């Protein structure tokens, strides 16, 4: 008898140990892997937060939590590579100078911010969040997993290059122009950016010299003075950090591509980029991602040539296309925007799905970790009740590294009955 109890206890302990918090099996759904086709009636097995098996006949180890998703659609968690969530927009812009690379968004993250909850309901698992576009050289963005209410440290993605935000065009012009300061023109924007990077080159040279001498064992040398603005730009010059630049007009895009060549810095994404289709070939050649909306246009002068038909031109030219939200509100509707993109462009449906998953991962340099359902990748999943490009679909579950962060059944008035 005693032995039996002991045996039972051992089994219980084993089960609790093996069934970790980050273990999960999704069984019976239509799996849209995005990169490796569709699997009907398949299983995705997640262990320790990573996808360890995907396919039709997957053996689910006993004790692992199984969710039956028969008839539902399973796709990689959606990714938004340009948004403004998870912090108070009061901290949205450091408007004291057009050059503020010393500002880091990670300092203001709030993991219980309500915009995380609402974005999760749109199936989004990873975002790059940032301040606004007041400054030509703004601050450093932060890429986070939407682990609502968890410590901020756990949300921040580690081991990838972060991105510095730049903004050209009317926003910095309007803000500083209205204060009677430079920049109030596009020439001013160009000057401000160039001046900052020339200073950064000089700063870097000083530090390079110092470090070289120090390494050579030279004595009695003093390190140059540290400057946090220049430290960030030095990281960019050393390619330890990349750039996401907000711009609308084609002429500015061309200017920006040349500027980044001039300083030998890495431009990962051009955001908003409504004129991107006009210079699609040049963007493809430079290997920079388009990040933008599908059908926004005409809200201001520089946005007038926004064109929802431009996606096909960019796709055919070989541009990595990412659909972004740029806002907490739109961040909930990435899948609807992917569907909308198809209305205006004769492109395969998989391409639409890529624009909200793997392409975004590529822009964040995380394509080895997220953006598709493949063995070895993070267990970040969105479960939809219908095909995600059917716009009467909805998100049932949002899962990050094997943990459910959004569950429609538990948080819905549609399910639980109407409330006022």
């Amino acid at each position, binding site marked *: 008898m005693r032995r039996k109890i002991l045996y039972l206890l051992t089994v219980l302990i084993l089960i609790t140990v093996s069934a970790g918090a980050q273990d999960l099996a999704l069984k019976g759904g239509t799996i849209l892997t995005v990169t490796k086709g569709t699997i009907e009636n398949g299983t995705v097995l997640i262990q320790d937060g990573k996808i360890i098996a995907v396919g039709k006949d997957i053996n689910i180890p006993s004790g692992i939590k199984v969710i039956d998703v028969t008839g539902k659609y399973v796709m990689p968690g959606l990714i938004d590579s340009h948004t403004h969530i998870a912090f108070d927009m009061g901290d949205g812009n450091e408007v004291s100078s057009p050059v503020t690379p010393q500002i880091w968004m990670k300092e203001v993250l709030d993991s219980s911010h309500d915009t995380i909850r609402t974005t999760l309901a749109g199936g989004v698992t990873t975002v790059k969040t940032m301040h606004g576009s007041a400054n030509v050289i703004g601050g450093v963005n932060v890429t986070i997993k939407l682990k609502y209410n968890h410590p901020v440290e756990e949300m921040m993605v580690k081991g990838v290059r972060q991105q510095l935000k730049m903004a050209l065009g009317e926003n910095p012009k309007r803000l500083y122009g209205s204060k009677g300061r430079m920049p109030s023109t596009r020439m001013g924007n160009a000057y401000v950016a160039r001046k900052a990077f020339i200073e950064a080159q000089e700063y870097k040279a000083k530090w390079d010299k110092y470090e070289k001498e120090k390494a050579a064992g030279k004595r009695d040398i003093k390190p140059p003075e540290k400057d946090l603005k220049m430290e960030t730009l030095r990281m960019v010059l050393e390619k330890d950090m990349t750039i996401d630049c907000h711009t609308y007009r084609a002429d500015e895009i061309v200017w920006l591509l040349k500027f980044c060549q001039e300083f030998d810095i890495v431009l990962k994404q051009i955001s908003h980029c409504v004129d991107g*289709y006009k*210079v699609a070939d040049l963007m493809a050649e430079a290997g920079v991602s388009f990040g933008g909306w599908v059908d*926004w246009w005409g809200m201001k002068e520089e946005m007038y*040539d926004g*064109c929802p*038909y*431009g996606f096909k031109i960019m796709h055919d030219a070989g541009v990595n296309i990412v659909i972004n939200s740029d806002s907490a509100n739109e961040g909930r509707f990435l899948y609807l925007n992917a569907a909308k993109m198809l209305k205006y462009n004769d492109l395969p449906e998989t391409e639409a799905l890529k624009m909200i998953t793997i392409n975004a991962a590529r822009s964040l340099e995380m394509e080895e970790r997220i953006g598709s359902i493949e063995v070895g990748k993070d267990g970040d999943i969105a479960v939809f009740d219908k095909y995600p490009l059917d*716009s009467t679909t909805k998100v049932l579950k949002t899962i990050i590294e094997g943990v459910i962060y959004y569950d429609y059944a538990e948080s819905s*008035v*549609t399910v639980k009955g109407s409330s006022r």
Partner: protein
Amino acid sequence: MKKKITIIGAAVVFFLGAFYADAQEIILIKNGTIVPVVGKVITNGSLLIKDGIIAKIGTSFKAPKEAKIIDAKGMYIYPGMIGPLTAVGVTGYPGAGSDTDEIGVSTPHMDSYDAVNPEDECIEVTRIDGVTTVLTVSGTRSAINGKAVALNLAGNLAEDMVIKRDVVQIFNTGARARNGYPSTLSGVNSLIKDKLNQAKLYAEKKKKKAESPKDFKCDLEMEALTQVLSRKVPALFITSDEVTIRNALHIIEEYNLKGIIFATIGILKFAEKLAAKNIPVIWAGTTTMPQRWEAVDKYYHTAAVLAKKGVLFAFNESGRPGSRNVRRQPVPASLSVAYGLSEEEAIKALTINPAKMLGIDNQVGSLEKGKTANVVICTKSLVQLSSKIHTVIINGKIIPKTSVQTRLRDKFKKIVQERKK
């Protein structure tokens, strides 16, 4: 001389011919799934358009010889969508200046018709996505704003576009003024009531004009408001929350107005009352961000509740007018269907419901014999955002599928391809 006569004769024949062809344009749409909105869905249906009007609708009938045939096999045929609160036609291109929201806290005498520009590029962009009719407003940001005009989005002159003028008079119970009175909600409420009271007196004086002409002086502001008091023109109230809805309803009741409520938040508390009093709602809050304590799908689900409670409602894609993206009308419909509204109700809220509340349902909003031929043919349901628009017909004429955006597409597709070579 003879030659001259021949030329003139030829010219006359040519013009008459052109006129004749124009007036007699006959179009037959066949083999499609017709969703007339009023009446049952017709599979494999045919629709005949003649003289700008829907002449016949049914399963199969022979086309007149001269008819242009559109084969809609595998496609859906809907009445054109209606944008119930837009600034299409008056927002202009950048630099042209905006013509909405005249200065003043009470400007009921402003008429959006006076500023309609048929060359506004927004018209083409909007109509080729299936929105064929809009209500164009003169403003919404003052306590008392101007009149609105209902337009079909086709025509060379503003007058060719008009379905109806003085469709509604717009009030805003949440329009606190930035400088000066009324800077509070109570102030806004009082201002509107004061003006309506004045208009009552004005109407009485006007009645007695023959007896005591000295007492009466024409006042366009008051003229506009008397139309609202006599229920000739409905009063559309822009609201922004529960309080502003309540105030609007009080004014509607107190002055016995023909009211319409435009809402983004707080409407469900009033659903029973709105249904009982037949006050329709322009529901513009589907994409409102929920508050921290509200369920994430509260606003996606609101339309389903409104429908269930019997409130007549229409979708508006944006929480504020002046958007250049009226073509996004299907977005709130999609979301609402995802969260509990029937597709049938959703389509109504894009077509016949707005037509009813704006009093233009005798002409547009459904596919019925005798109505204006505003027709959209698309590859999937109207609530599917990936549904491609195949053909748009307004006033019985096929609309060219061109806009500033298709022209940009064609231009730069070529440029990019050539540069690549």
